[in-house]
């Protein structure tokens, strides 16, 4: 009796353990996206459960992590759609006047933006990545959420519009604001180049 059960059990355990190995990775993204520890935990539990239930659909032509990321993305979109339906976004102006104070009266940068010498090298630095994370956490919530959906979860603008009910120009404005706020935030340390030399 026991032996017949154990022949099936180990496989199942290994599979769930395999999925759960990615929990920390999924949590990091969910936390940044949802900005709420409990919501992130619930979300990641749902993702792992869903992945486990649909494990037959995983075909191995992408990595397990990529597959889990796409499940997370869909789950996040569902959650945000509900949240945003309950608290609709205020009609966003075109963004034409955004960041006026960064520009002089002729529309040119009042201060020279920093030159990033070597983006690839800079992005290897743990300190820079932490600075980016801190700047993202400081973005207005919804702007940060759209940005993380776009850049971390790889959602394209068409999906953002269709699945979240945003207009194209609204998506552009949100992403533009996110990028400009992030570059302003990172300029405070000279975009990683503040150290002389």
């Amino acid at each position, binding site marked *: 009796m026991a032996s017949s059960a154990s022949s099936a059990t180990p496989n199942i355990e290994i599979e769930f353990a395999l999925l759960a190995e990615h929990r920390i990775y999924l949590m990091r993204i969910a936390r940044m996206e949802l900005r709420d520890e409990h919501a992130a935990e619930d979300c990641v539990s749902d993702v792992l459960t869903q992945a486990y239930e649909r494990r037959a659909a995983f075909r191995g032509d992408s990595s397990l992590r990529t597959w889990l990321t796409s499940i997370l993305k869909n789950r996040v979109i569902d959650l945000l759609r509900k949240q945003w339906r309950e608290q609709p976004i205020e009609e966003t102006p075109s963004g034409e006047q955004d960041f006026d104070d960064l520009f002089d009266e002729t*529309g040119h*940068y009042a201060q*020279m933006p*920093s030159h990033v010498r070597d983006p690839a090298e800079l992005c290897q630095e743990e300190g820079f990545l932490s600075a980016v994370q801190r700047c993202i956490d400081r973005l207005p919530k919804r702007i940060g959420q759209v940005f993380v959906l776009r850049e*971390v979860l790889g959602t*394209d603008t068409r999906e953002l519009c269709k699945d979240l009910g945003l207009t194209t120009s609204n998506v*552009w404005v949100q992403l533009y604001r996110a990028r*400009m706020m992030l570059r302003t935030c990172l300029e405070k340390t000279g975009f990683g180049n503040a150290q002389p030399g």
Partner: protein
Amino acid sequence: MRSLARQKMLRLSCQQASRLLSQQQDEPLPFGKRVRLRLHLMYCDACTNVSRQFDTLRLAMLKWRDRD
């Protein structure tokens, strides 16, 4: 006179160029905008730097996601 006015109309401010730089991160720009942006970048160091900053942000997010 007329050509000067025309030039002015075609010329992007850094503020406009920055919006296009961001938009370009998300989808291909229509031809006219792409040309005007490229012309702007040819003489504008500030927006060239911003363009590189945007590229850096994209790379940083991927590295942040995949670290450990």
